[in-house]
């Protein structure tokens, strides 16, 4: 395996873990963690893309920006989690399925 293939394997593994977490966990904090893992997988993909196309500077700039934006999303998600725990008394997503139809 060359470097690029190893990176791609890493992307697939990280995104797989993230998607698995999103589909099968019901705890809101774990969902936020899964989202983070998913995005980190994408960031590895972006590094690989920068390396493959010789545009490493561009991809690094993009990655730094994505990390910042994604952290804000995680912070908002965790703030929601705190509020969910306060109002619903649980972090189980099953409790958050009252709006239907």
């Amino acid at each position, binding site marked *: 395996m060359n470097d690029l293939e190893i990176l791609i394997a890493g992307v697939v593994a990280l*995104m797989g873990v*993230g998607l698995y977490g*999103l589909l099968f966990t019901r705890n*809101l904090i774990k*969902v936020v963690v899964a*989202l983070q893992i*998913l*995005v980190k997988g*994408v*960031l590895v*993909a*972006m590094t*690989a*893309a*920068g390396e*493959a*196309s*010789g*545009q490493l500077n*561009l*991809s690094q*700039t*993009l990655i730094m*920006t*994505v990390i910042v*934006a994604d952290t*804000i*999303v995680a912070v*908002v*998600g965790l703030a*929601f989690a705190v*509020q*969910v725990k306060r*109002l*619903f008394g649980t972090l189980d*997503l099953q409790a*958050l*399925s*009252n*709006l239907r*139809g």
Partner: protein
Amino acid sequence: MEDMTAFTWMITLPLLASPLIYLLGRLVKQDGPIVSHWAAVIALAITWVPFVIAAKELNDSGPQTYELGMITLRLDDFGLLMAALSLGLGTLVALYSGPYMSAESGQEKYYTLLVIMIAVMMGLGCANDLFNLWVWFEGMAISSFLLVAFYHEQKPSLEAGVKYLVQSAVGSALVLLGISLVLGQTGTLVLDDIRAAAADSDILLAAGALFIIGFGVKAALVPMHTWLPDAHSQAPSGISAMLSGVVIEAGLVAMLRALGSLAGVSDSWGELLMAFGALNMLAGNLMALRQTQVKRLLAYSSLSHMGYMLLGLGVAIYAKESAGAEGGLFHMLNHGMMKGLAFLAAGALLYTLHVAAGDHSPLTISDLSGAAQRYPLTALGLSIAVLGLGGLPPLAGFMSKWQIFVAGFDTRETWIEALVVFAALNSVLSLGYYAPLVNRVYRLEPSEIVRQGKPMPVLMTVPTAVLALAIVAVGIWPDLLRWITEPAGKALLAAFGL
């Protein structure tokens, strides 16, 4: 800073004003909420100056560009249409929110986020590379998460916020993966350069699919729409109007920009958009038919209207004729006005009947019985909005749907003609839930809840009246908006290299 042109001021002015709005609201002890409300209204009113100058410059000397290091912003007619929609509805919503939010705590945050959201959506229309596009898109997403869950002490709002955040975040991760694929394959992120470099490759096809799914979450393409009815019905009504009238359209604009750069990769983008359009119309209308809550009904109707826009845009990309795109973008503007008015009028009734009494329960259709006798102007506004959405002449919605349908028939392809007939039938179907609403408002005796309703604040009547007049005016003289929709449709096709 000297080189900044009018259109960059149009984006930066609200962004610079937003922290001031927050600080003013915080620092002024007694009248903080009122101060932040008027600060937001004034900031948005001043933003109209650079907007008008930018529109004039665009008209005189073609697309404007602004470079700051690696970042390039470019205003073309398509971006101007997005800015007009965002700023136009945004200003009215800021005005409207004064009385609506008067009893809430933390209003300075509401106005700050609203102004930021309006600014980033104008920026999104001006993005010239995928990197920029994603950053503006994410900025819009984050500000709208917080606004959807603004009633954070209400269980349903929080639930809607969580659903919206998780689905949006997955969507934006998929968009990023698509951007990585494009970067790896072409070595550039500038939209025009990608279109020049893009060859027919499977990897870029996958990137296009990721863009459709990722941006499609925000544009509420069925089946990625499940966040929409919850978010639109639980957000404060002004924000519902913004979400439905501008935010989902911004998702569509982002998708079209990204797909335009990949135009050479596949010939089927147009067909794909039309297919999603048909799905959206049917699913939106069928779900709306069985709703009992007014804002939820309007939310589902947004799905079907996204379908009409997709049909027009898909026809244009498929047939390489700008008529369909002009119709689709015309409908985007009209839908912004009509759905904005519908949510604002429904929100005004929700406010006087429920919220003003400190009650956060949803507005049901049966609450509206006889509302016209007590609130004649608001009821008239709501009726104009829903009848326009249903496509009755001579209202704005009829004109844009007509233009889309004519563009479809002009292709002389049987299956597109069948699709247009399907869309027209859907339009008739939609009257099945709009007409009973109007009937209930006008012909039934006032319900107990209407009789006990609070008086309607003037600041909430003014934006609804402005929008209602605009809808009737555009319906009677559809050429009023041609100056913006015609060049925007051509600019969109130019972005697809056609």
